[in-house]
């Protein structure tokens, strides 16, 4: 079975002014969105309120959850404590409908716990509030600084690898496209104001891995074609590379998307954020592999002579299947 004609020859690079223009616009829009609307940070990042409730008779966690939902407190994390008579609730105060953010003031614990008490007691009169407190974010400053270190590590690591295995221009083009993919993915999340928690952060980082993978496959073909063709007009070589890897690019992203779509539509709230972020990232990454990475490469002035094997390829690597 074949969906894409194997001798497709769309002149992708002819569209380069348009495609790069759109890419730059999308990036700028994302930056503006992130600067103005920011991300809708979840409990992991902001911290919130923790309320402990006790019951005279055993209660199931599911009942507590539905009681809170009915009382207008959504997205609360409910856990049983000890046995069946105590539960611990955590939520962002903004999830409480009576909560109005006052500038520079921390939310009023008593008001919030009253709301919780009302919600719980409507369902079960034997509920009592045993304790209330603020909780700090699960994500410490450490993770933030670790995140910066990790980002630098990724940029230097991938850049260096591509520089050694390919050439300087490939490293620059890959990293530039990578920045585009991450920014646009974050921009979309900011636009729809989807809650940004640790799981979503993990999938944004996974997008980096996915999209670099995608770019390298095209780059690999570019290198191969440059080396094998006698008359190598860069624009023609790049275009042929995109076309001959097109089927693979789209099939791989379709397969991965199928798995993520199943998670999104049937997986329930716990994997929702993860799946939708991946779906956005796969779409952005696939499009940028086709329309953005190669035009950048062309503009940087890649040519056949840059890619002729200066260092002889490792014969061991070539021999392996």
């Amino acid at each position, binding site marked *: *079975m074949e969906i894409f004609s*194997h001798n497709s020859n769309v002149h992708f690079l002819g569209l380069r002014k348009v495609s790069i223009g759109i890419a730059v616009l999308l990036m700028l829009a994302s930056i503006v969105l992130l600067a103005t609307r920011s991300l809708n940070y979840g409990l992991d990042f902001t911290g919130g309120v*923790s309320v402990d409730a006790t019951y005279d008779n*055993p209660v199931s*966690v*599911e009942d507590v*959850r539905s009681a809170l939902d009915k009382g207008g407190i959504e997205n609360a994390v409910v*856990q*049983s*404590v*000890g*046995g*069946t008579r105590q539960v*611990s609730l955590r939520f962002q105060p903004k999830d409480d409908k009576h909560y109005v953010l006052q500038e520079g003031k921390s939310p009023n614990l008593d008001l919030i716990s009253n709301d919780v008490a009302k919600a719980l007691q409507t369902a079960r009169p034997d509920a009592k509030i045993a304790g209330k*407190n603020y*909780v*700090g974010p*699960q994500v*410490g400053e*450490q*993770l933030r600084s*670790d*995140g910066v270190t*990790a980002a630098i590590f*990724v940029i230097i*690591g991938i850049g260096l690898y591509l520089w050694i*295995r390919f050439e300087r221009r490939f490293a620059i083009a*890959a990293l530039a496209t990578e920045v585009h993919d991450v920014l646009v993915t974050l921009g979309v999340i900011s636009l729809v104001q989807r809650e940004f928690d*640790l799981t979503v952060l*993990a*999938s944004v*980082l*996974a997008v*980096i891995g*996915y999209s*670099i*993978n995608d770019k*390298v*496959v095209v780059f*690999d073909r570019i290198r191969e074609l440059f080396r094998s063709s006698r008359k190598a007009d860069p624009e023609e070589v790049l275009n042929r590379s995109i076309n*001959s890897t097109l*089927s*693979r690019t789209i*099939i*791989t992203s379709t*397969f*991965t998307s*199928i*798995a*993520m779509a*199943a*998670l999104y539509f*049937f*997986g*329930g709230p*716990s*994997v929702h954020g*993860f799946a939708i972020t991946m779906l956005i990232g796969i779409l952005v990454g696939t499009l940028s592999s086709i329309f953005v990475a190669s035009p950048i490469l062309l503009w940087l002035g890649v040519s056949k002579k840059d890619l002729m094997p200066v260092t002889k390829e490792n014969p061991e*690597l070539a021999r392996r*299947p």
Partner: protein
Amino acid sequence: MSDFPRWRYFLVAVVLVLGILYGLPNVYVPLQAVQVTANQSTSLDPAAQQKVITALQSAKIPYVNESLKHDASRGDYIVIGFANGDLQKNAADALKATLGDSYTVAFNLEPTVPRWLTAIGGRAMPLGLDLQGGVRFLMAVDQDDIVDRQENRYTQDIAALLKDRKIPFISVARNATRGQGVNVMLSSAADRTAASDAIASEYTDLGVTDGASTGDRFALNASIKPNKLHDLQVNAIRQNLATLSNRINALGVSEPVIQVQGEDHISVELAGVQDPAEAKKVIGATATLQYVAGLGDARDPAVQDAAKTGNVPPDAHLYYGQHGEPFLVSKNIIASGDELVDAASGNDPQSGSPMVSVTLNSAGAAKMLDFTRDNVGKPMAVVYVENTTDTKIVDGKEVRTPKTTYSVINYATINGVFSNKFQTTGLQSSKAASELALMLKGGSLAARMDIVQEGVIGPSLGQDNIEKGLKAVLLGLGLVLLAAAIYYKLFGLVADVALFFNLVILVAVMSMIGVTLTMPGIAGIVLTLGMAIDANVLICERVREELRNGSTPLAAIRAGYEKAWATILDANVTHLIAALALTTMGSGPIKGFGVTLLIGILTSMFTSVTVTHAITALIHGGRKLKTLSV
């Protein structure tokens, strides 16, 4: 078959068997169990066991199994397994009610992995806080300790400052009331002004006020400004949080949740355990350390006298060592645990005897340099300050009495001047050295902490959400397998088999490392598998291309694998770099996710290329082919 050597078939077979073997323990889900132990006076005999069974039967709670066990570390205990967490909780409530105070009823997870699997090192992945819950500790940071530390430090620093500036003073002492700062007594108004200016300009965190002056005694009080004190407290909590995270994270991917709660509490949640005693070992000691000048050990008659009579010199403390031997140590603290950066055990290159090398931060190093410069040949002691809470049931209520114990864990002679790096030698064994290093590292908290609450917590995800998630995961995988088979026919089916083995090997490796399985982690596994098929897509597309270019089927397979390999390698190495970066990110879901991705990329390179090649070679090898099903 010529292009696929026999030893590679052997390798594939061995890896697959190992993968199945070490992935297998995950099939045996640990039982949610209730554990009953006897308190001191009562004994745990078959009669008690019968009592447990009767209690459960009368409460109509079905149990899976029940047995009386003995364990060297836990002693005798009865363990009863239940089919789910709700039954377990109900049973615990019922048992607590009927058994009363003479027995302790606790939750536990009882592994069901067969003994032969455990014997070869097989173990299941622990389930995360979202899927199964775990243990929660609430720790109070000792606010008084923060004030004590600061005021003691300023007392020493002010005395040193005045000496340094050559301002004569009668005394520098901490106010008897905590939080009231340091009292300085001077002999003239001019001295007092000079001292006041010196202190105010040197230590901006201190507020200096003149006290009452009588005759030739001019008092001065320096106390920490209230807003600065608040900053210090916030800082100490933040530092403790960081130390605690590092300590827990150093133990592997346990995906803990560590957060500040309220003003001065830290809450720690650990997954995969339901026994608080076991979890406490993970958190480690909530102790602190002090380096102090030694004033005498057990051989010193003055020390023996002090130990016997209880008359301790005013500038000294009488502390005991780990074997009960008395020591006199100075009240002045040279450096404390939060100034310790690292402690590692090793062997002294000169004598070969066990030692511990310690690294201090710059503040600690400066004080250590000052002290050792004047005290070569004199002893120095390491005091371990531990906070424990005794819980007693008085009149049916839990009464907690905090207790602080001081013990001298090391007492050694200073051999030379040193600052940030030094060694403690002359330890009895390398075991003693590693224990000391562990205790030193464990004591590097900025302020003392106390466990004020501990308990078992349930999963943070609802049962219906867990089920939904798992169903979606299976559906997603199924759809990918189906799509590959439809699109690439036989080669797709081969890729599917490889993908299945990829899952098995991935799970096996994760189990061996001990990665905690969470819902995002499961999503990560699906993502990894979805991306792993990329290698097969690359190979299949290449084989198709070769066929179009007029190669014979066998040549197309060979060329397809060869050409695709370079691409697969490049693509996976860059992907690997990205995954590696994730694993360096602190703790929690991100790290776990990164580890999953990292292992997944490595296993997929093996299964998608080597395993599929082996199967393809088996199917097509030695046959004359006209077409390929790709």
